[in-house]
């Protein structure tokens, strides 16, 4: 595992560095919890790692409120997501996903950006961000920013829509619809042990409920069940307008089947496709219980 490392100190320097490596082989490094594992297996010759961990720009590593959104910088670590009170109050699903990621030690360094850009089908933060219907702020080496919906960001197993001269700057999560809305929001991670577990299946849900008990908005995403994390659009639609406490057994199953329709899981050494589907159905039902 041999590579050069460049550590730009601010975004201007970062953009310059990216430009100078345009025709060479390089990778970004943030918390390195994915990257080092990958490079240990195989490191291309003459690789340079552009280290993002020394960037001083606050925007890259802070959580900010705007009128419409909560913006989370790509360098925010999982442990920051766990301890931030806004995240805890507004988006429990994201806090829970971060809390269930790996172990205390890894959460100290693992970043949101790293999780997103690894684009693993079992990425826990991805799954939560997708349920929250976030969008991605992408910056290029000319410092230009463009937005992409989170669903368009992932184009295949471990593949994002990022071009070589682009990096993830932040994600924007739309604020909940009403301040008064109550939330039914959480992250269900299936695995054999309670920590250091890679999701065998995951389900992120974020339901907003008005005073009368009516669901006014719903976000459901599933992980480790398809080549990318999936947003279960029709399952969300099914919920909107219905009362949270009045689902019949049949309706719960209908909902679970809708979630399941987004799953095309594989069998691997951690579980069979049969198990993944069975569990996904059960826990989807469980969301409405």
């Amino acid at each position, binding site marked *: 595992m041999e590579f050069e490392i460049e550590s730009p100190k601010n975004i201007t320097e970062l953009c310059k560095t990216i430009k100078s490596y345009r025709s060479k082989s390089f990778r970004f490094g943030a918390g390195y919890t994915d990257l080092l594992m990958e490079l240990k297996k195989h490191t291309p010759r003459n690789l340079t790692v552009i280290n993002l961990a020394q960037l001083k720009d606050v925007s890259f590593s802070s959580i900010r409120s705007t009128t419409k959104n909560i913006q989370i910088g790509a360098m925010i670590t999982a442990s920051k997501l766990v301890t931030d009170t806004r995240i805890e109050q507004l988006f429990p699903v994201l806090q829970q996903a971060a809390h269930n990621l790996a172990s205390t030690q890894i959460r100290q360094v693992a970043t949101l950006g790293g999780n997103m850009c690894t684009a693993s089908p079992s990425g826990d933060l991805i799954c939560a961000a997708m349920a929250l219907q976030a969008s991605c702020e992408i910056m290029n080496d000319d410092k230009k920013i463009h937005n992409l919906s989170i669903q368009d960001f992932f184009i295949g197993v471990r593949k994002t829509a990022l071009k070589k001269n682009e990096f993830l700057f932040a994600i924007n999560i739309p604020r909940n619809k009403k301040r008064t809305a109550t939330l039914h929001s959480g992250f269900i991670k*299936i695995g054999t*042990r309670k*920590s250091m577990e890679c999701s065998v299946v995951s389900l992120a849900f974020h339901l907003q409920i008005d005073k009368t008990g009516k669901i006014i908005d719903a976000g459901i995403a599933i992980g480790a069940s398809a080549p990318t994390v999936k947003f279960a659009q029709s399952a969300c639609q099914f919920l909107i307008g219905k009362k949270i406490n009045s689902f019949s057994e049949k309706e719960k199953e209908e909902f679970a089947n809708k979630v399941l329709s987004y799953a095309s899981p594989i069998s691997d050494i951690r*579980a069979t496709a049969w*198990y993944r589907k069975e569990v996904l159905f059960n*826990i989807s039902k469980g969301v409405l219980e």
Partner: protein
Amino acid sequence: MSKKLKIIGTPVPKHDAKMRTTGEAIYGHDIKLPNMLYGAILRTQHPHAEFIIDVSEAKKLPGVVCIITADDVDTNHIGYKRDHPILKKNEANCTRDEIAAVAAETKEIAQEALKLIKVKYKVKKGLYNPHDALKKNVPQINKFSSGKFENKNIAEKFFYEHGNLEQEKKNSVAIVKRKFTLPRMTHACMATSNITAHYTKTNGKLLLYSSTQVPFLYQRDMAHALKMNPSDIRIIQPIIGGGFGSKLDMHPFEPICALLSIKTGKPVQILYSREEEFIASPTRQPMEIELTAGVDKNGNFTFREIEIIKDNGAYTSWGATTPFVIMQAFSSLYKIKACRFNALAVYTNNVFAGSFRGYGNPQATFALERVIDLLADEIGMDKAEIRLRNANTKGEITGQGLHYDTCGHKECLQTVIKKLKVEKKKVEKNNRFKRGIGYASMLHVGGGAKIYRSDGCGTTLKIDPYGFCTIITGSNEIGQGSETVLAMIAAEELGIELSKIKVINTDTDVKPWDVGVHASRTSFVAGNSLLGAINILKEKLNNKAAKLLNEKTKSFTYENGNIISPSNQQIALDKVVREMHFTEPNELAIASYFYEPSSKFQDKDFKGNVSGTYAFASQSISVEVDTYTGNVQVLDIHVAQDVGKVLNPLLLDGQIHGGILQGVGYALTEELIFKDGELLNPNFHNYKMLTAADVPNIHFYPVETNDKQGPYGAKGVGEAPLIPTAAAIANAVCNALDIEIVELPITPERVLKAIAEKKNNKKNK
């Protein structure tokens, strides 16, 4: 023991605890010798293949000092059956197979050299299932096996019986027959395998820094492998980062490292990576156990009939002898009138297993205790009651000839049954979470196991002119805390402060013989050996003290560094030693003793009292199963264990907690997954060892039966806590869901499958 004890029974921390936790401890990985080279091993790419090997390119790499293949060495085969070539020639038979080894100036160069070795493989179809290996027209897997059995792929066979099986079948009102499948589990020692070999050309002596658990057997095995004189080989054990049985066998990498040192005349070190550790260190024995058992109308067990097929892997290790312990569980745990036992170890192209804490007993106990629950169901008897009714008792001599001079079985059972009050929390209205409880007991040797010509241990004890005591013991420390317990015994008996007691136990050139750390024997055997040496030394000290104090008596007490007479005259211990050394007749304050337990070598029918004493334990466990996910959450584990006598409650707790967690892992998560002989999960990511977050509530109740054979009445404790755990958890899960479990680990997927099958069966009915 009527004497009031001062130190024994108190929670003295492990004397090396600080050193180990601060990083001061020197493990095998920390050793650096001048001019040392780094060794690396090339293993086959295919579990079964013919190959030709060309090392010429690799030899040219600057920094490579030596490369060896089978053609370069003259060695004997190793392993329990001497059927294991150290370096394999022309044919690979399992994924671990060592086909070449490199010594180089750096680790990186050694790894680079491995890549430059050219191997041409002709891949062959392997036999990965023992049933396939037993078929008629299949090839012989191990060409070096003795071939003394009716089938060429049988590595070892065991037969045992007692009682009148046919009669007992007739006496049974219910008979249950089940087949159980047990997985491969790995020890996952914190320190990976390591060795540093240093051969001195000028005198032909070989020095090995090795983390073996059995240095004297290892010395002999090494000598046999290398065709050397055992006494020319000196074994020094650095601090060992975990054993659990994995270091009972000598493994090929160890003589390979020695060979590299012999060839180069330089010290050579081999350290495993974690991945290599998963692939190339031994495992728990996988096996199929078919158990048929009966019960009479009163709920008394009648008979057990056992057929076992063990996957031996390509070579034979100590692991092949686990039926020796397995048959004890079947023949002698609970009262049983008749037993017939057959076990086969069958060669396959899988990796070979080795010894692992419990030595076959967790497998046996799982089958046995599962079937007890089924028998209870058959006759409608309570599961606690059927166990109490059949529990072993003091004074019992079992069908196999084990003498239970003391026996805490019933008390253990009663304790855990009473303690497990399940707060049957109201089952939620959706019925998602189900709770259940399970019981299991175990029997294990508690006073060594006579499987070698001697099960003894030697001690040399000395007191220096400053009143410090050195215990030179044959036994060794592999993390279990034996040094601490030995120091406590010396402190208790000699009235010397713990800080003035040193334990020397790492050097075969210095220490007296001992068979090694296994069979939960060390505190028992080494403790008794030390007590023997103390008695002899005290006699000498008493004589001198009597002279110096002008006392007639020879019965002194030892306290606070003083020797005290019945009339309360006292003299400092160090002064007595100085007087011994420096005044006539000028003798040393030194004594040696060899302790041999009263146990007997079993006869050819495996009958006889094989251990100095026997340990019993029972566990009761409550679980909650999530029927949506199949996850089993262990809530409470109650453990009562007949430990004879608590020597040190802190160390005992450590053994109990560690053992139980290994047991929970065995029950629920840990499994090496193989496909066609290849390991698919050689990492902690997918080999699911439990984490701190998964630890259940463990409640421990020691039962003291004060065995007259044990030091202060103590019995062996190390293996016991792991043995019944998987069985009790399986029983609890079956109780919660009304399903049957015949396979470990009880993964979430297996649980959901069982639930689905139950639903299907209901539909079909």
